[in-house]
């Protein structure tokens, strides 16, 4: 049993190391804050580790991980514990001192988008992040969110419409982002 468990632990380690950067980015978009993102990914992976025996042998462990992460994110919002989503405070954006005008503008754009995302209701934010950052199909996003394809569609559409309507972001959108 010891050897088999060691092998499973190693498998989990390499899975986690490989997925960590992407999960951090997704969590950052969902939470808008560095430490909240770390928290979310860490607690997601703890749950994945607990179930790794089953998950590791599944065809698509990523789908399970996404589901756990979205559930954890939704649960935090259901508990409705509010915290300031304040990129200027804690996200590390401020600590990266920009040295050129472009970098300042880029940091402003990021900050504006994170704020805009933070203003979306959690389900809309999840749908937008899964569809347009994770690049999931509507069916995959529906699986991750535990809802119907129609719900994903309407949440994503509402989210995009609200993002477009936010002053400043509309301008960034028309510029197609900054290179």
């Amino acid at each position, binding site marked *: 049993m010891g050897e088999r468990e060691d092998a499973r632990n190693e498998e*989990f*380690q390499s899975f*986690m*190391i490989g997925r*960590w*950067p*992407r999960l*951090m*980015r*997704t*969590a*950052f*978009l969902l939470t808008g804050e*560095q*430490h*909240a*993102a*770390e*928290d979310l990914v*860490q*607690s997601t*992976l*703890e*749950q994945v*580790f*607990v179930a*790794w025996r089953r998950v590791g042998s599944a065809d698509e462990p990523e789908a399970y991980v996404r589901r756990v992460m979205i559930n954890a994110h939704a649960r935090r919002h259901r*508990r*409705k*514990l*509010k*915290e*300031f989503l*304040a*990129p*200027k*405070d*804690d*996200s*590390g954006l*401020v*600590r990266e001192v920009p040295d050129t005008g472009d970098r300042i503008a880029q*940091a402003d*754009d*990021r900050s504006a*988008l994170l704020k805009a*995302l933070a203003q979306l209701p959690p389900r809309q934010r999840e749908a*937008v*992040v899964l569809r*347009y*950052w*994770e*690049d999931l199909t509507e069916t995959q996003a529906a699986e991750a969110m535990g809802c119907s394809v129609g719900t994903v569609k309407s949440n994503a559409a509402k989210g*995009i419409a609200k993002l*477009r309507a936010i002053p400043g972001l509309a301008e*960034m*959108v028309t510029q*197609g*982002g*900054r290179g």
Partner: protein
Amino acid sequence: MSGNRENHGMTQTESDIALLLADAADGVEIGIAPVQAVMRGGRRRRSRRWAVTAATAVVVLGGSAGATLAFAGLPGEHHRTQVAAHPASPEARHVYEPQRTELARGTYQGKEWSVSVQVWGAPRNESEAARQFDRMAELGLKPADARKPADLIGKISFFATRGWGEEHVQQVMFNTVRTLESYAGTDLESIATRFSSDPASSGRLVIGMVAKTAQEVTCDWKDGRTSVARPAVGVSAHDDGNAIRAVGGFPTANWFVCVAPQGTAYQSAEVTK
């Protein structure tokens, strides 16, 4: 993935937003995957599941031995406490002035910092709510999900605030709810933040809520050091900023604060006793 995206049937706006999301996602510090911490946390979760099962088993056992369960009498006590806690006047219910409890205090870079919790009683009608809304605005507080005074009716508001030096206190963790959520066992909800929004303050704090029964919260920092918060009553010159405290007006949980040693950042927090 998103960086390699092509326009798979997306509208121009959708693909623009996809680009902006990819750019914003790059703003996160990735850091090193904390594999060992996650595996330790996973093992604790496993054992916690057993602990929950064991506790449930005790209740079931008590239920089958009716006389033993009645002897404890705890549910009745809880009920009496709730019934008694409804004084009539808005002042007595802390509708216009919250109950304030200081959780921790210390000095950072020569300036004093503090963390407090304030709990506002539930307004019962529009006029109470309007006065509470105005009073909160005077203090620079923004209640959660309350755009107009009427949104506050029947709801308790709480705010954990931080202050550093001369600047105004800032709310860092807050909510407006019909009933306060109860915490039990090793439940813990926390945030990691700084002493201030001033970038000069890199000092880190963890503020959170735990069950009334929690005797110890251990905060792990990224450099491997830990801070331990234990129940504290009153203030003492020996306080190091780490403490678990009961908060006036908040009967369903205690609050805690952990302070990071200089030069490190938050990794995890959990109830360890």
